[in-house]
């Protein structure tokens, strides 16, 4: 049976990918960012999940406002890297997991999440910006070490889904994953944020105090976050910072016993860049029977 072994919350601002591509690892302006992701990359290298279920948003790249899906699930075996207006970023194309993704589509729809599906559409920095931090060896290797099941969320054009709806989507995703018969290790990833605003005279707005509170509540009390309205997220974290509702989808897919084992926060310019790692309690190996069986197996 497929099972969720952990979760990751991560920013997806394009400069994270740019810093990687420009090899800024040793540039003091960028070192804190790279250092912040190292424990997460190590954890992934150690745990070797088969699939990352990735809650992300498209940035008016693949989808346009003539038809902007609220939730859309990628079900194909491959997704090309999107051209966002300056050519294609040199990263491997994303590998999908059609078996799990198709099962999830059936499960979600029967669970009353009437999700759109897409196949072989290009995916933009919403996925690939954090992905090179999570799987840093993939570019050199020429392929990602695991598959992705991308779930697009509209956070661009209001009305966008409520924080509670995103959390419930995560819960439905957990039910979908756990009912898939194949033995797969799955990690759920919620992307976006933290505080930033990219429009109007309020552009450049940040709120570190709120970001810290969010990073605390997302582990300890996600229900407090689902009780908030979108306008609260906009006021506290900026119009674009409100995309952290995608972290709520990730959190909804995790259990009550999950623990945050790492977090990092860096705010160099306009967007607060954060990453947080959540680990599910390990399932204890089946305990040996405490009493000797009544019938001892015969020795040969």
């Amino acid at each position, binding site marked *: 049976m497929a099972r969720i072994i952990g979760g990751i919350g991560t920013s997806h601002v394009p*400069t994270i990918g740019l810093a990687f591509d420009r090899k800024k690892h040793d540039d003091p*302006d*960028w070192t804190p960012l790279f250092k912040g992701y190292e424990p997460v990359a190590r954890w992934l290298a150690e745990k070797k999940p088969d699939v990352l279920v990735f809650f992300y948003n498209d*940035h*008016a*790249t693949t989808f*346009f*406002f*003539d038809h902007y899906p609220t939730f859309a699930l990628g079900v194909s075996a491959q997704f090309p890297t*999107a*051209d*966002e*207006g*300056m*050519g294609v970023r040199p990263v491997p194309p994303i590998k999908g997991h059609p078996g799990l993704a198709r099962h999830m589509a059936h499960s979600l729809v029967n669970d009353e999440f009437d999700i759109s599906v897409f196949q072989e559409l290009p995916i933009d920095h919403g996925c690939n910006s954090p992905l090179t931090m999570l799987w840093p060896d993939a570019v050199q290797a020429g392929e990602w070490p695991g598959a992705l099941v991308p779930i697009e969320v509209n956070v*661009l*054009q*209001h*009305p966008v889904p*409520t924080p509670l709806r995103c959390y419930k989507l995560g819960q439905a995703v957990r039910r979908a994953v756990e009912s898939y018969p194949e033995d797969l290790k799955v990690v759920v990833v919620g992307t976006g944020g933290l505080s930033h*605003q*990219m*429009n*109007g*005279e*309020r*552009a*450049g707005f940040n709120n570190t105090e709120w970001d810290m509170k969010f990073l605390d509540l997302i582990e300890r009390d996600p229900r407090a976050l689902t009780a908030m*309205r*979108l*306008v609260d997220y*906009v*006021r506290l974290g900026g*119009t*674009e910072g409100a995309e952290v509702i995608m972290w709520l989808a990730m959190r909804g897919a995790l259990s009550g016993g999950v623990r945050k084992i790492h977090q990092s926060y860096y*705010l*160099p*310019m*306009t967007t607060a860049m954060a990453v947080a790692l959540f680990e599910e309690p390990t399932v204890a190996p089946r305990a040996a029977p405490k009493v000797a069986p009544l019938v001892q197996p015969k020795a040969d």
Partner: protein
Amino acid sequence: MNAQLEGIESLPGTYLFDLERSAKALRLNRFLHDFVNPEKRALFKENPEAAFEQAGLTKEERTMVRNLDWRALIRYGASFFTLEKLGRLSGVSNPAMVAHMRGETLEEFLKTRNVPGAR
């Protein structure tokens, strides 16, 4: 009225991209979105007026795009994420776009940042 967004109008300098703005600026946003296509980028670079004509932009829309007037474009109804494509194509960075929207020079804006060199 969307109950989730009640009170949004009290936030100064904020232009939430909603269905009203999207409808008003659909043609402009489509023009900007089309820069994901290399042929559309080439046409705009070689002959912006022909690109405007092909997209059927109004005089007001053409002027804002020609002047890279980020503040006016946002107020008009452009999505930041379609504008970002025009920014890349025109060699203007996000910090420079943000500074313009705030009514600051890039230098002034960078002084307000924690790590001005992280660009």
